[in-house]
């Protein structure tokens, strides 16, 4: 909401830093995020980076949100413009009444003119050139210097900043002083030249106690460690790589035997995604908790193997950190574009169990859940995160682990159980839940069987017999119904008097929640269901039946969640209205609210609607 220059916006504004990648601005951005967070004020961090290592434009957005919103705001109030190449578009992006801060070592009075903004020039390069030696140091310090400027303008606590730097450089204390010197340069300049603090400023609160800042990939990796995963196989692909890197980092710390130095895990960098998922299937078949992480192109390559795991009934955990498609698409931008291809990954009558975490804390929780489900159901489980959840910084409740948790290894017969039975039939439905019993190699002579992706009967033998084939695939269908009862239940917020609803999934959650509050303030009340698992359970079916108009909010062009709802439930599709956001940026509350309001009160500007 644009405001006048004088409008006070305490703990409710957006800072965006425009820089060039490879210049070290990431550490300054992280420092700013944490300084605000440690002031007790919730933040949302979004990194918009190029698919490149050095020299291209990159942006980092910090939403200061005392109300604790979790989505992108959809506007920018303070722009730190450090990249002359993007000055024009950066200037245009600032909301009316906002601030544009740039490096006035090279003044641009004519170019940088907008009557409704305050343009602030700080000679960052000059300040640093005067105080530091060496080209690389000067560039790095220039980036720390702008953090100092912001600290002055937005009322950040310098002691907090020093503490943070001391933690970061615990092993190189001399860097603390150098960085503080650069901070002070910017801070003092701002204080001396402008009236500080600005109306857009930070004031200490107590709203982040018990919280952390973490990205979803790190949280998912930690979940894998706690779930007892021992085999990780992957092929590097943005934006999933950091999940595997984090897993390795945690394992090196937590999984190395102190006496022998042996590692209680193995990481295998595969030759491609086909091999990565093949290794996961091989290891899971052999009784280890194994996983891989990938993104859209990798998921496409894994399809054949995922069909094998579905039909031969082998557990496998796959994290799909979705990015913009089709094809290579935009590897460093976010989308929920794999909902459909994940749900039906592979040829034939194949359906896959999917989990849809909405934030890092659910990435952590669902990682463990995914292994339990994969082993319980003897099937692949695909955890569909996305770049926004996986790689951006989220404020979350501290992760906690339930000490009483024990892995659910499913129906794996041990030596004692095998010793007691007459014969082991691999694909036989003993318990009438569609889930057969399973054995592991090397456990007992009676446990031997032959796993195959070719036709097999319920006893585990090869078959080309129609009836025998059908018994097995019909049981798989029954297992699917069991899966619908086991996947995480949707989160539902429902008032019986209301017949308008929103359905979303994954990273759209924060925007939908914020939008619902805004809409309610306008007198538009909505119920809400967030899907967390596929197959959909009865709760989804009942929710759909209970509403006249249901907005399906998702981040892809083709309304993939809506398609799935139409295919897999009895809903009348005319009741499902899409709100689709697919430009690669995370969806904002405003986009959702506008989409709903356009239908409920037609005079409002319309968001793109399908259906």
């Amino acid at each position, binding site marked *: 909401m644009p405001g006048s220059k004088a409008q006070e916006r305490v703990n409710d504004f957006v800072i965006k830093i425009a820089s060039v990648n490879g210049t070290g601005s990431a550490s300054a951005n992280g420092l700013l995020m944490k300084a605000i*967070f440690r002031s007790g004020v919730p933040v949302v961090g979004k990194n918009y980076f190029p698919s490149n290592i050095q020299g291209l434009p990159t942006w980092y957005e910090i939403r200061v949100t005392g109300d604790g919103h979790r989505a992108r705001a959809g506007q920018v109030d303070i722009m730190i413009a450090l990249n002359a190449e993007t000055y024009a578009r950066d200037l245009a992006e600032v909301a009316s009444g906002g601030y544009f801060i740039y490096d006035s070592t090279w003044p641009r009075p004519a170019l940088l003119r907008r009557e409704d903004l305050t343009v602030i020039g700080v000679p960052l390069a000059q300040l640093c050139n005067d105080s530091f030696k060496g080209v690389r140091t000067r560039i790095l310090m220039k980036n720390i210097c702008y953090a100092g400027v912001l600290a002055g303008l937005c009322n950040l606590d310098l002691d907090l900043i020093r503490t943070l730097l001391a933690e970061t450089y615990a092993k190189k204390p001399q860097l603390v002083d150098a960085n503080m010197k650069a901070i002070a340069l910017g801070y003092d300049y701002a204080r001396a030249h402008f009236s500080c603090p600005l109306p857009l400023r930070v004031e200490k609160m107590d709203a982040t106690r018990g919280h952390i800042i973490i990205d979803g990939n790190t949280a998912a990796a930690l979940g894998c460690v706690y779930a007892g995963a021992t085999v990780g196989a992957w092929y590097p692909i943005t934006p999933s790589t950091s999940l595997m890197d984090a897993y390795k980092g945690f394992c090196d710390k937590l999984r190395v035997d102190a006496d022998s130095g042996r590692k209680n895990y193995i990481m295998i960098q595969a030759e491609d995604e086909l091999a990565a998922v093949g290794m996961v*299937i091989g290891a899971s078949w052999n009784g*280890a908790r194994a996983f891989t992480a990938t993104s859209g192109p990798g998921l496409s390559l894994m399809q054949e193997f995922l069909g094998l795991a579905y039909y031969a009934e082998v557990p496998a955990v796959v994290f799909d950190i979705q990015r913009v498609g089709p094809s290579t698409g935009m590897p460093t931008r976010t989308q929920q574009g794999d909902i459909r291809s994940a749900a039906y990954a592979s040829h034939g009558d194949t359906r896959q169990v999917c989990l849809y975490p909405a934030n890092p804390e659910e990435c952590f929780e669902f990682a463990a859940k995914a292994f339990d489900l994969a082993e319980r159901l003897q099937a692949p489980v695909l955890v569909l995160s996305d770049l926004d959840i996986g790689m951006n910084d989220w404020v979350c409740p501290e992760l906690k682990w339930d000490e009483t948790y024990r892995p659910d290894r499913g129906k794996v017969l041990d030596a004692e159980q095998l010793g007691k039975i007459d014969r082991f039939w691999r694909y036989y439905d003993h318990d009438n839940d569609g889930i057969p019993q399973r054995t592991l*190699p090397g456990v*007992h002579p009676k446990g031997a069987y032959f*796993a195959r992706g070719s036709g097999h009967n319920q006893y585990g033998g090869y*078959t080309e017999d129609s009836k025998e084939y059908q018994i097995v695939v019909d049981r798989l269908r029954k297992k699917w119904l069991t899966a619908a009862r086991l996947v995480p239940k949707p989160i539902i917020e429902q008032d019986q008097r209301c017949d308008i609803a929103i359905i979303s999934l994954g990273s759209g959650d924060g925007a939908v929640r914020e939008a619902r509050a805004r809409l309610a303030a306008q007198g538009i009340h909505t119920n809400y269901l967030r899907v967390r698992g596929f197959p959909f359970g009865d709760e989804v079916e009942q929710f759909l039946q209970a509403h006249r108009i249901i907005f399906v909010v998702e981040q892809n062009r083709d309304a993939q969640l809506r398609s799935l709802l139409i295919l897999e439930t009895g809903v009348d599709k005319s009741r499902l209205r899409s709100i689709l956001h697919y430009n690669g940026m995370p969806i904002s509350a405003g986009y959702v609210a506008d989409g709903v309001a356009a239908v409920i009160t037609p005079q409002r500007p319309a968001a793109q609607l399908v259906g």
Partner: protein
Amino acid sequence: MTFMAKPKVTHPEMPRNALGMTRRDYEGANSTLCAGCGHDSITAAIVEACWASALEPHNVVKLSGIGCSSKTTAYFVSGGHGFNSVHGRMPSIATGANAANRNLTYIGVSGDGDTLSIGLGQFCHAIRRNLNMVYVIENNGVYGLTKGQFSASADLGSTAKKGEVNNQPPIDPVQLAITLGASFVARSFSGDKAQLVPLLQAAIHHQGFGLLDVISPCVTFNDHEGSTRSYAYTREHYEEVVHTDFVPLASEIAVEYAAGTSQSVTMHDGSRILLRKVDAQYDPSDRASALQAIQQHLQRNEHLTGLLYIGSDQPELHALNSTPDLALNQLPYAKLNPGPQALAKLMARFR
């Protein structure tokens, strides 16, 4: 049911191995391949090698991809665990399975199509990882199940059954493997059980990737004149350069050879393989000279056979990754979960 259980016929005087088991205990389902198929002879050799090595059948993992050769894992060691995966991707299944439990015996059977075309990448990378497994290529130069197309191992100028001439050079898995740093590379012929069985035994005991490229004629699609993978052609054009005898642990080497013609390699478990060099000049521990000899013979249309290269001290996958001796799938959960306190401590990093 379209598969038949093979009745186990035993006789009290049948020889028994150290586990008290007969060869019958290492057989599998009846083969459904064509009568006379070379693959069935290889299956028989695998049965013999597993029996002679006294492997616990349920500790044997049999892996394959897709094709005639890949069917054969059902035809041996029915007490073992089989995994018939997807076309060309058996090495990744084997890698994962081996990663989970290093203490089983992994025997992979593949074909020239499965390994050298669709699966060439996975084959190469399994070699690079020195995955501890026996990898048998039943190499017949032809696609059997799809009725007679050339495979990537078909020799230049060889002809298909209907006369078509192959004009692309072959991929030789033996030379490729030696180049990639493989630790155990052998070539054999399905018709030479005396050579094949000890090679299989040696590969079973080798700690690392044990490759056996076995020329295995396809009687239906590639046993005609003009084929270079027929029984007749193979018998005429193959030359054993190193004969391997497998000497189990604690056995004495019974035979003596003339000086300079034999070489003993001790395996990790103390068993030995004894290499009897038919050609005294051939050195199976020297990658470059082995390659040179193989190429020189190939130029004369001769296949050198036997254990062509061995590097017995190359670290395998688990050694490279410092995993514990106990299989990863047997580590207790308490050892894998760092516990709530460790998590609480970790959280400090994210505040």
